[in-house]
């Protein structure tokens, strides 16, 4: 596990938030994923050692929570809300648009490596449906036109690099 010094110090700090070290499991997994982009194979053992647990205790947690991923994703993570309120106003089309724009399939890294599109459950912004979370940024009322516009932005950023 090759973590940035900043991540390591955050890890040590967050453990102090809890009287029982095990509670820091989710925070540690978030910090590792933010640092590396995903949770590499040795994460369970590393976190277990840090929190005085058995590795299976950590693996059970990693696989329970959908936000934790064990494989790398594209440079940007596009999460389209699938649930009813968004679906009622075109969430499925929004999702299909992102898939088509990046010639990719759900859960996969797009061929250009730019994005991974996921169809996720309710993002709790049903009043501005359909909503899309791109990395940490929530985008509201993302119809097909706006999905194309967001896709173009991402592609333009990619060209600039």
């Amino acid at each position, binding site marked *: 596990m090759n973590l940035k010094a900043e991540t390591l110090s955050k890890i040590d700090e967050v453990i102090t938030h809890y009287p029982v070290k095990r*509670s*820091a499991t989710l925070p540690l997994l978030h910090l590792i994923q933010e640092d590396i982009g995903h949770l590499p194979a040795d994460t369970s053992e590393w976190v277990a050692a840090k929190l005085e647990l058995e590795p299976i205790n950590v693996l059970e947690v990693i696989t*329970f929570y959908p936000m934790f991923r064990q494989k790398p994703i594209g440079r940007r993570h596009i999460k389209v809300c699938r649930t*009813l*309120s968004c679906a009622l106003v075109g969430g499925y089309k929004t999702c299909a648009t992102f898939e088509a724009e990046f010639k990719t399939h759900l859960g996969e890294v797009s061929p250009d490596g730019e994005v991974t599109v996921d169809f996720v459950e309710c*993002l709790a912004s049903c009043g501005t449906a359909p909503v899309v979370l791109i990395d*940490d940024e929530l985008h509201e009322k993302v119809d097909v036109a706006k999905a194309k516009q967001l896709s173009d932005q991402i592609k333009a950023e990619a060209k600039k690099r």
Partner: protein
Amino acid sequence: MPAPAQRRIIFQHIDEPGYTNDIGCYVRNGGYEVLKQAVTRKPEELIDEVKKSGLRGRGGAGFPCGVKWGLVDRKSGKPIYLIVNADESEPGTFKDRYIMHQDPHQLIEGTMISCFANNVRQAYIYIRGEMPHGARILEKAIAEARAANFVGPNILGTNYSCEIFVHRGAGAYICGEETGLIESLEGKRANPRIKPPYFPAVLGLYQCPTIVNNVETLCHVKYIAQHGGAEYAKIGTPGNTGTRIFCVSGHVQRPGYYEFPAGTITMGQLLNDVCGGPLPGRTFKAVIPGGSSAKIMRFGERYKGKRKVGTEMVDYDWGVEDVPMDFDSLGMIGTMGGSGGVIVMDDTVNMVEALANINAFYSHESCGQCTPCREGSLWMKKISSRMVHGQARPEDAALLKSVADQIPGRTICAFGEACSWPTQSFIAKFGDEFKQYSETKKTAKPADAVALI
């Protein structure tokens, strides 16, 4: 009758031009004055105010907050924890998001007052993993409050100390269930606990007495501490005090969040007057009144019975539009006010497809711990998805209902109800649509039809 005016006590500053989420703005608007005053009072007094207020939890169950606090084991000698349930996950609900993003100090103040009232020395805010900004905003707000001595050691010069930490979830609806949330906060899979014996008020976080309150609920506590329980109870109707925030989504002209005195607005007023009615050329078909697990209402149906008004029992005969949007009225007609998430569907929606969408959600979110919910939720999803994408059989309606009937009341937590009520109510209200779906499918859909599954 036109809709009453909104009364924003919790959402007072939401979307207010120029209002920012930093402590300076909050204090300029009178922030933390209630906390300053609260720490000079006896904790029992504050608990009494909450009891007097009649405040019911805003997370979904509508359990009286004062009663919840009253159940806390204060003699165990163990620390008492307070957890802010900010895992807003019930589809159709999106109120806590705005409080945390736009007015985080309101939540922190309400939390600190509640902690002081209950002698809590450590609180955690369990926020949805999908709200990374919200988590950062709360962390910044707590840091500001700590710097101003509103949070942390010896707050406001008293000998009372209390710390708040933000804890992020990672994409599990079941963390909204309070014992699932506690397991998750302990660093485990969010499997809800069996009750008895694991009532949070006695054996909660780290097996210590624990209070779990929703974000909005704690904001109401702040208002109650400020104005008194009796004053708060004057808002709304008896048994449904205070204000209610409705989150309206789906097929209306103006979806969004609206705060009204509880029990003063009907479904029709909310959808037609406040939200602008159906989309052009459409008509309302159905509405789910309290988050996607609440039982669906069908426009055109009538609800008849007797209800208590004051001390009298009077007849009622309501259409969907006439139903008052409070916990008791909605419960009386067989659904629930739940989390206040109102999902509206118009005549373009096929109910088989809408249910398939909901079933996909609940089967994805079942923790998988106990048999009826784990197997039943996925089975219902498989049936309803097959109906849409494969072969639909007329007998699937009866099968779906039968499967759903085998779940509620038999599971570890209320997810059993949450995942089966949609199927039960969709079949009860729209059974014909399910029986005829194989025929319906033979008709080509319009090109602009919205896919739901």
